[in-house]
Structures are given as structure tokens and as C-alpha cells.
């Protein structure tokens, strides 16, 4: 208000003064007319201020939107904690947690069993493989002949089945089949492990194949018998190993039976409890509606409906007794199981058929006592377990941030543990940054310092063009090209020293990391190049004048002076990589499990899921407001926080290393 008044005063006054100072024009110049008209006030506001507000408000919009995003994310996500708390509470009250105490460590049995099975089959093969190969090869050859003669066989079969039979026709078909069979049998390539006589006999037998004869040809029968004999021989030779494996596999059965019974009971209780909860919330809603309803008729009907839907709450205390009542039995079974497997471990032979098998057996032998110890320890905690111990909010937070399982749509229990996703994201980001940093920084140094003008004109647009490639296209490339390439390369013999080779999965963290590195290069390259470009010319002059070579100047002066910019370029690249969704969703393999870091550096060739990928994949499919939905929002919040943190670090680095201007 004040300023407005002041303005009006002045805006009248300078009129005459300005006229004096300027050479007197015949009419007021257009400019001054325009300027004076601008000095009027609009709605009582100074127009200068209006302009300022206009620009200011546009800047604020960005901030406001950011705040709104945060508020929205928080609102949807923060309810996750109480929801998850309720779910974990039911998990405990209904006794699912009790069952998992034993069931979780029992999973180890399967891993050990499968190792043993592998060891057994590898051992048996040492004796039976040649016989088996001969048998399999013979069957394969037979199959090839049959495939080639399939038409003739069918015609003959049909002719034979015809009533009344037509003997001449049958004769014709039989002859045709005979001829093609002879030709086919002749055309076969007989592997070298068949002697000449055997090959000849096989050829004769194959040539004589007809649909009427169902018995195997004699030589094939011999081959089958040869294999069974060898297999028997092998099984007696490795009897100890075979027996240990069988015992080990059977050992779990009585225990698993008890656990399964308890699990069924717990699940039943849980389902009832959940159903009751749903009904109860519905009823509460009806009552609320009735309370606010003004029409007495409607009100009465709502109340009635609510009363009708009253259901009986599950008596958790009673149902849990059926489970905890069997604690002693369960403990006994665990103890028995532990004793049996320990015995099996003791009789496990030191020797196996091959080196690999021996290694597997040794692993199992060492693994079993540990497994037994774990089982016993788990059984010991059963007594201390309380069904009514409350689930604190801190343990819920812990269960989310440090939970190692992300299991959804489970018939047993959903778990929302963050660690598998975070570890996937971090490993992929680390791979991407480790690849992209040297590439983009070196490219930036080259372009900025060594490239000719023409090279610059080529390199810069090409690298910047990468940014224009839609990430879904890169995903295609990852699936169709990079995956196969990595897999093929990993099978080259002379590269087998590389940890993780040969790889199992084409879609894995390394593949995703490579593509993300490719996506991060433009950002990191451009920003690094800018940073180098901003190094004052005077530093270069000084270095040159002291007799430094080009390389010395680059690495001792330019790069150190631009290091803050380069570091923040790397961090901004990291931000880009962490937030990227499409590529990781398509290429990372989407296995929701913590990568097995015991594999050493080879871990990068395992598939994984990511923070961004899980949201993109699951958010569309879950029902709004469910715990799963809320969990995904929590992941979104954490992702958002990580991005903010990375960006903040980039700024801090830029400030920290910025040479203070004198």
C-alpha cells in the first residue's frame, strides 16, 4: 500500500523534469509514453512486483510439486507400518511363526539332498556312462529310422486294421515300408563305440522294423541289459554313498509330517482370523453409516444388517493350544532327525566317483552337523516362544528394512523384506558405475584435450544421442543381444578362470549393469567434459610455460582441477542408474532373492530384482490399499530418499572440492 502511494506521487512528477533534460521533442517520444503507461498500478499493485511474483511463483511450482509428491508418497506408504504390524501379529497369534521356527531351517535339507543326489549320479556315471551312452545312442538311431518311415508305417497300420483285410494292399505297403526302412537304416551314422559287427546288426534290425513287432530288437535288448548290469555294479560299488543319500532323504519324513500337520492347523486359524477381521471392519462401517444416517427407516435397516453380520471371533488362545501342545513331540522329532542325519554324515564315504562328486560329498558332510545344530537350536527356542507377545513397531520397521524375504501372494504368509531388492539395486548400480566411470571420464578427457575439432563434432553428438534411445529398446537389446553374447562368451574354454563362468542365466545383474552403464555414459560424459572445459585456461598456460608435456598437464593439472565436477558427474550418473526402471525390469532376471555373495565376484552373473523393477512390475496388479500396495509405496519412499541423498552428495562434492576463489 505504501509503495503504491509513493509510486503514484512520483509517476506524476517526473513528467516535466524529463521533458527538460531531453532535447525538447515536438511530441512525447513513444518510448516515454510506453514507460509512463507502465507505471500505472494494476489492482493496486506495482507491476514490477507483479512480474516478480509471476516468476517467483513459477519457481515455487516446482518446489510445491516436489513437496506434494513427498506428501503423497508418505501418506500412502506410512500406513504400511501399522498394516504390516497387524499382519505380523496374526502371523504370530495363529501360530505360523511357531511352525516357521522349524520349517525355515528344515529347508536346508533340500539343498543338502540335492547335492548328494548330484554326487551319487556323478559317481554312478563313472561306471555306467559308456553302457548308457550306447543304449541311448541305439534308441536315438531307432527313433530316427522311425521318424523317417513314419508315413509308410501309418499306411501299413491302417491297412492292417481295415476290416475286411486287403492282403494285396498290405503286401504293397509292407514292401514300401521295407524299402524305406532299409534306406533309412543305411543312411544313419553309427557312432564309433559300436563295433562294425554291431553297426551291421543294428542296421539289419532297424531295416526289419514293422509296426506289428512290439518287442525291442535283440541287440537293443542286449544294450539295455548291459546298462542295467553296469548300473547295478555301480550301485554296489558306491553302495555306501547311495545308501547314505537314501537315508538322508528319508530322515526328514516323520518330522516333515508333524510340521505339515501344525502348518495346516495354523493356516486354518489364520484364515478364520482374517475372515473375521474383514467381516468386523464391514460391520463397523455399517454401524458408522447407521450413526450418520438421518432417515429412520434406512437407519434401522443398516443397524439390522450390522447385527446380522456379527460373527464369532476366533478363539486364538484355544487354537494355539493345539499347536503349542505338541511342542514336546516336535522337539522329539527334531532330535531324532538330527541324530539320523548325523549318523548318515558319519557313514558318508570319503570317496566318490569323481573329483566334483567328492567335493559335493565333503560339502554335505561338513554341512550336516551345522544343519543339525541349527535344527536343535531352533527346537530349543520353541519353549520360549509366546503366542501373545506383542509385535512392536520397531520390530516391524526392522522386518521391513532388514527383512531378507520379499514374498507376496503366498498361501502361507507374505513378507515384505527390503534387503533382496536393495541388494539387487546396489549391485547393479555398482556394476554400472564401475563400467561407466572409466569409459565416460576417459572419453571426456580425450574429447576435451586430445580430439581434433572434427573428432569433437563426431564424438559429442554421438554420445549425447545415446540419451535419446528409449530405455525399453535398450531392454530389448539386453534380452536379445547382450544376454546371448555374455552367455556365449562365458562358455569359451580359455575364459573359465573368470569367476561365475560359465553363467547360468542370460538375464542377470551384469547384463543389466552393462546396459545401465551405457545409459549413464551420456550424463557422465557431458558433465565431466563440462568440468574439464571449465578448468581455467590460465592453469594450462602456467603448466605449459613450465615445460609440461600435454599428458602431464592433463593428468597433473586439468583433471585434478576438474575433479569436483567429475565426481559430481559420477554421482549424478549414479542417481540416473539407481532410478532407471525399464532396463532392470526387462534384463535383471527378476529373481527376488538376496544374491549369493558367497559366490565371490561371480555374484554379478546372478539374476536379481530391484527397487524400481518391483514397483513397476507389481504395483499394477495389487489391490489398492492392501499391505502389498502400501509396501510398494514404502519402497518408493526409500527410492526417493536414495535419489535425494545421491543428488545432495553430488552437490556436496562439488562444493567440497571447489577451489575457493581468491
Amino acid at each position, binding site marked *: 500500500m505504501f509503495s503504491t502511494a509513493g509510486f503514484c506521487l512520483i509517476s506524476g512528477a517526473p513528467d516535466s523534469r524529463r521533458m527538460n533534460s531531453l532535447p525538447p521533442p515536438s511530441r512525447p517520444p513513444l518510448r516515454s509514453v510506453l514507460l509512463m503507461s507502465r507505471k500505472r498500478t494494476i489492482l493496486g499493485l506495482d507491476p514490477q512486483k507483479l512480474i516478480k511474483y509471476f516468476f517467483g511463483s513459477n519457481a515455487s511450482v516446482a518446489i510445491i510439486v516436489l513437496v506434494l509428491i513427498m506428501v503423497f508418497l508418505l501418506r500412502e506408504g506410512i500406513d504400511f507400518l501399522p498394516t504390516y504390524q497387524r499382519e505380523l501379529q496374526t502371523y504370530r497369534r495363529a501360530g505360523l511363526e511357531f511352525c516357521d521356527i522349524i520349517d525355515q531351517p528344515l529347508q536346508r535339507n533340500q539343498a543338502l539332498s540335492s547335492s548328494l543326489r548330484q554326487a551319487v549320479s556323478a559317481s554312478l556315471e563313472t561306471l555306467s556312462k559308456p553302457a548308457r551312452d550306447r543304449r541311448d545312442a541305439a534308441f536315438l538311431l531307432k527313433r530316427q529310422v522311425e521318424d523317417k518311415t513314419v508315413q509308410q508305417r501309418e499306411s501299413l497300420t491302417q491297412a492292417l486294421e481295415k476290416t475286411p483285410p486287403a492282403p494285396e494292399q498290405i503286401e504293397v505297403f509292407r514292401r514300401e515300408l521295407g524299402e524305406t526302412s532299409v534306406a533309412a537304416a543305411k543312411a544313419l551314422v553309427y557312432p564309433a563305440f559300436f563295433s562294425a559287427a554291431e553297426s551291421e546288426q543294428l542296421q539289419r534290425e532297424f531295416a526289419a522294423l514293422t509296426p506289428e513287432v512290439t518287442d525291442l530288437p535283440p541287440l537293443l535288448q542286449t544294450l539295455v541289459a548291459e546298462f542295467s548290469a553296469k548300473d547295478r555294479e555301480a550301485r554296489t560299488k558306491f553302495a555306501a554313498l547311495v545308501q547314505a543319500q537314501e537315508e538322508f532323504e528319508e530322515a526328514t519324513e516323520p518330522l516333515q509330517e508333524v510340521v505339515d500337520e501344525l502348518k495346516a492347523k495354523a493356516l486354518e486359524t489364520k484364515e478364520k482370523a482374517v475372515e473375521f477381521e474383514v467381516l468386523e471392519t464391514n460391520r463397523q462401517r455399517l454401524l458408522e453409516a447407521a450413526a450418520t444416517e438421518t432417515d429412520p427407516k434406512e437407519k434401522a435397516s443398516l443397524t439390522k444388517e450390522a447385527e446380522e453380520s456379527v460373527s464369532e471371533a476366533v478363539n486364538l488362545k484355544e487354537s494355539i493350544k493345539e499347536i503349542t501342545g505338541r511342542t514336546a513331540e516336535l522337539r522329539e522329532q527334531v532330535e531324532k532327525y538330527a541324530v539320523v542325519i548325523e549318523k548318515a554324515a558319519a557313514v558318508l564315504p570319503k570317496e566318490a566317483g569323481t573329483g566334483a562328486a567328492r567335493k559335493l560329498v565333503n560339502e554335505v558332510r561338513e554341512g550336516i552337523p551345522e544343519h543339525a545344530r541349527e535344527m536343535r537350536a531352533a527346537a530349543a527356542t520353541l519353549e520360549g516362544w509366546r503366542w501373545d507377545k506383542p509385535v512392536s513397531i520397531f520390530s516391524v520397521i526392522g522386518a521391513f528394512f532388514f527383512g531378507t524375504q520379499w514374498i507376496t501372494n503366498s498361501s502361507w504368509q507374505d513378507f515384505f523384506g527390503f534387503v533382496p531388492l536393495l541388494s539387487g539395486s546396489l549391485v547393479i548400480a555398482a556394476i554400472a558405475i564401475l563400467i561407466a566411470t572409466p569409459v565416460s571420464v576417459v572419453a571426456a578427457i580425450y574429447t576435451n584435450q586430445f580430439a581434433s575439432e572434427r573428432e569433437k563434432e563426431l564424438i559429442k553428438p554421438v554420445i549425447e544421442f545415446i540419451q535419446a534411445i528409449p530405455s525399453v529398446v535398450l531392454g530389448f537389446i539386453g534380452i536379445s543381444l547382450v544376454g546371448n553374447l555374455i552367455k556365449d562368451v562365458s562358455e569359451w574354454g580359455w575364459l573359465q578362470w573368470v569367476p561365475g563362468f560359465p553363467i547360468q542365466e542370460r538375464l542377470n545383474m551384469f547384463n543389466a549393469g552393462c546396459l545401465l552403464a551405457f545409459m549413464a555414459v551420456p550424463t557422465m560424459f557431458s558433465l565431466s567434459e563440462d568440468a574439464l572445459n571449465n578448468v581455467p585456461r590460465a*592453469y594450462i598456460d602456467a603448466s605449459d610455460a613450465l615445460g609440461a608435456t600435454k599428458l602431464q598437464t592433463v593428468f597433473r593439472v586439468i583433471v585434478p582441477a576438474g575433479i569436483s565436477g567429475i565426481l559430481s558427474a559420477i554421482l549424478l550418473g549414479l542417481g540416473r542408474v539407481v532410478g532407471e526402471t525399464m532396463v532392470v525390469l526387462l534384463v535383471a532376471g527378476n529373481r527376488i532373492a538376496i544374491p549369493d555373495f558367497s559366490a565371490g565376484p561371480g555374484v554379478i552373473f546372478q539374476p536379481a530384482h530391484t527397487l524400481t523393477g518391483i514397483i513397476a512390475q507389481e504395483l499394477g496388479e495389487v489391490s489398492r490399499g492392501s499391505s502389498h500396495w502400501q509396501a510398494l509405496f514404502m519402497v518408493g519412499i526409500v527410492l526417493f530418499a536414495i535419489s535425494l541423498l545421491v543428488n545432495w552428495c553430488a552437490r556436496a562434492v562439488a562444493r567440497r572440492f571447489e577451489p575457493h576463489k*581468491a
Partner: protein
Amino acid sequence: MSADSTAQSTPPPVVQVRDMDFCYGASKALFDINLKVEYHRVTALIGPSGCGKSTLLRCINRMNDRVPSARVTKGEVLVKGKNIHDADVDLTQLRKQVGMVFQKSNPFPKSIYENVAYGLRIHGEKNKSVLDEAVERSLTHAALWEELKDRLQANALALSGGQQQRLCIARAIATVPDVLLMDEPCSALDPISTLKIEELMHQLAHEFTVVIVTHNMQQAVRVSDYTAFLHLGKLIEFAPTEELFTNPREKLTEAYLRGTFS
């Protein structure tokens, strides 16, 4: 000229420019320059702005090489009797012999120590005690040792403008060059800092040969033994400073000194 008579009695001049023409692309910046710089003397180059003082200075350590299409088109430049454009001249070694200080101080964004040690390091010196010794000697020469000896690891950019320029001098003399080129080293400094550097110049002349470009004639009088006056790319007059200022031979010089220059 006086330069001829000294040439017979003393060793050859440390820098000798002979009949040199210099071009930036098609445009000629220097015409037929002849100049001899004596050992352990301060030689000043004066003249109006744009007359080619910096260009001439930069010819001596071949800093002009970095300007594409800039080249000496006639004549030669000798440093300690050796033509610096000969094929066997190592540019790194030449610049080790001919140091340079720029108009605007340009210390690296490194520690004071590393700034001074830089020249030695790039010439392969790794021995810590040699470096320590050189840093102390150079800073002492640049009259900075007393001020800075306790914070050698501090960032050089935290120093004041005058200190920074003296640090640049220390950096340039750390490799013990024969010649020190200075291109208007005081033009960006306050009077007190300027005074300090002018004092330094006399000290430096005991050990080095100094060529200084200045547009300040009083400065030339105060610091130099010889003065060259350039005008439009031509060297108009070259004489002992006192002679040139008190008794200029050329009309142009006189006009310039009087300030009645058109």
C-alpha cells in the same frame, strides 16, 4: 648501438632475436625485430597497447606455438646461442630454461608446496629433500618464505593477490631458468604489492636474466637496466634505460614518453 659494443667484451647475450618477423595467420604482428638480452640484467619492453610486447615475449619461450597458424616467418631467436626453432630443440627443456610469469596470477588449485614443486616434478624430480630445498630456496627468493613457511600445505588460492603473484614467480624460478619472462606482472595488483614485486626484481637480477613487459613507464625506469620501445610491431628503440628515458634518439619514443602520442 650500445648492444654491439657489449657483445665484443662479454659472453654472447642470453637471448638474441635477429631480424624476426612474426605473423598471426595472414596478419603480421612483429616486423624485423632485433634484440639482445644481457645476462643478469632486467630488460623492459614498453609500448602502447597492442604493439606486440606480449607477442615478442612469447616468442622467446615459444608460447606462441599453441596459437594455430602463428609462426615466425623470418629471422631467428637464439637462447644461449641456440636457435630455438631448430629441429633438435626440446620444447620442455627450452621452457625449463626460460620461465614465465603471467599478467594475472595463476597458481594451481594445489598446496603452496605443490605449486612450487610442480616444475621440478614434471621434470622428473622425485627426491623429497631436493624438492624441499628447492621450495625453500624459491620461496625465499620470492620473499615469501617467512610469510608462508608454516603453512606450505595450505591451498595456494587462499593467498592474497600479491602473494599469489610472488608464488607464481617462485614457481617459475624453482627450476632455475636462465631467463625469466614477465608479462605485466603487476598490472592486476595494488600499489603495495606492486612495490614488493619491483623490489624483488632487483634481487632476481642477481641470479636470473629478466625480461619484463610493462605499460607503466615509471616501473620500467625503476626496475630495468635496458628498455626496448615497440610501436605497431616494430622495435623503435633499444637502449640502456637511463639513456632511453633521458635522451631518446627517436622522435616516436620521445612523443610516447612525453605522452603526446597520437
